């Protein structure tokens, strides 16, 4: 049955729970499933934005990022076009003349003879491009392009969900840590307000100045004030309050 690889890959995709792994692990699983779903492909990679730059961040073979580097350096290539223009891009023979000559050269030098790049779209926005590589010419037909597009759309949703999940988790972790720091800083400000008879903003300014003077993190200064005050115990009087 021609659709068996696609069906099994999509079924595996539907069982994804992104919390099972990191975003990178999830994307890697998506990419391996893509190769399984499209038999002519020997390996695959995903072009996406990483820290403001296009990169092949995920791949099933280390050759993929080596080839793709040619298009990121030149700013031209089928993966970039698929991503930017949200269109399927196919090279039937990297040995023939055509668009993206530097990419063709790099691919041919690595034994790749044909490629297929499809955009990964979520609500009309591209979140990346899936790139498939084959070591024979004219490996990908129109049916493969349709299959790749169908698979990529499913993979894009997984990508978007995974990104949203990990963004939310990172935000939650960051806020939790921030609240721990905040508690210590608020305690230190309270100690300084009591000791100096100043308002909250002035107490914070004292922490800022101490942090700059000693080239220490403000939260470390605050922790030191709290620790010193606790260590002094109930004998602490106003003039005994620790200096920030």
């Amino acid at each position: 049955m021609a659709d068996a690889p696609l069906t099994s890959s999509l079924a595996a995709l539907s069982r994804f729970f992104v919390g099972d792994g990191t975003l990178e692990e999830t994307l890697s699983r998506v990419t391996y499933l893509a190769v399984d779903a499209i038999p002519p492909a020997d390996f695959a990679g995903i072009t996406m934005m990483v820290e403001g730059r296009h990169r092949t961040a995920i791949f099933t073979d280390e050759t993929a990022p080596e080839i793709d580097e040619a298009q990121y350096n030149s700013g031209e290539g089928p993966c970039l076009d698929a991503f930017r223009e949200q269109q399927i891009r196919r090279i039937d023979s990297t040995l023939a003349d055509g668009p993206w000559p530097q990419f063709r050269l790099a691919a041919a030098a690595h034994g790749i003879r044909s490629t297929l790049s499809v955009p990964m779209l979520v609500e009309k926005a591209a979140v990346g491009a899936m790139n498939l590589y084959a070591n024979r010419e004219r490996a990908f037909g129109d049916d493969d392009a349709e299959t790749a597009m169908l698979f990529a759309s499913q993979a894009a949703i997984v990508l978007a969900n995974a990104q949203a999940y990990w963004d939310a988790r990172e935000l939650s972790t960051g806020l939790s840590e921030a609240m721990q720091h905040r508690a210590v800083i608020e305690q230190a400000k309270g100690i300084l307000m009591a000791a100096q008879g100043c308002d909250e903003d002035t107490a914070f300014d004292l922490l800022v100045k101490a942090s700059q003077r000693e080239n220490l993190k403000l939260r470390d200064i605050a922790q030191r004030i709290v620790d010193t005050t606790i260590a002094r115990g109930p004998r602490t009087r106003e003039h005994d309050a620790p200096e920030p």
Partner: protein
Amino acid sequence: MPLSPESTAALQQGILASGYTITGLWVAAAGFGGPIRWADLADIASGDRPATPAEHNILAAALNDHFADLGHDHPVASWQELASFPA
């Protein structure tokens, strides 16, 4: 607010150098106290409105603690430091 342009420039340079997103800085600043809303921070970072002295110092402290982790010594000036610089 006489120091607004200097404050905005100092914060924008700090944000750019830190690599913080608005959300990342908002989370970091939450650890330093003061109720800075995300939308206010976005406006301050884009220069749409100036930071108050208290907001400036909280954001500068959050940025400087981040830079301290990278081995830098408080590159973002506090409001008081900006006020002391010669015009």
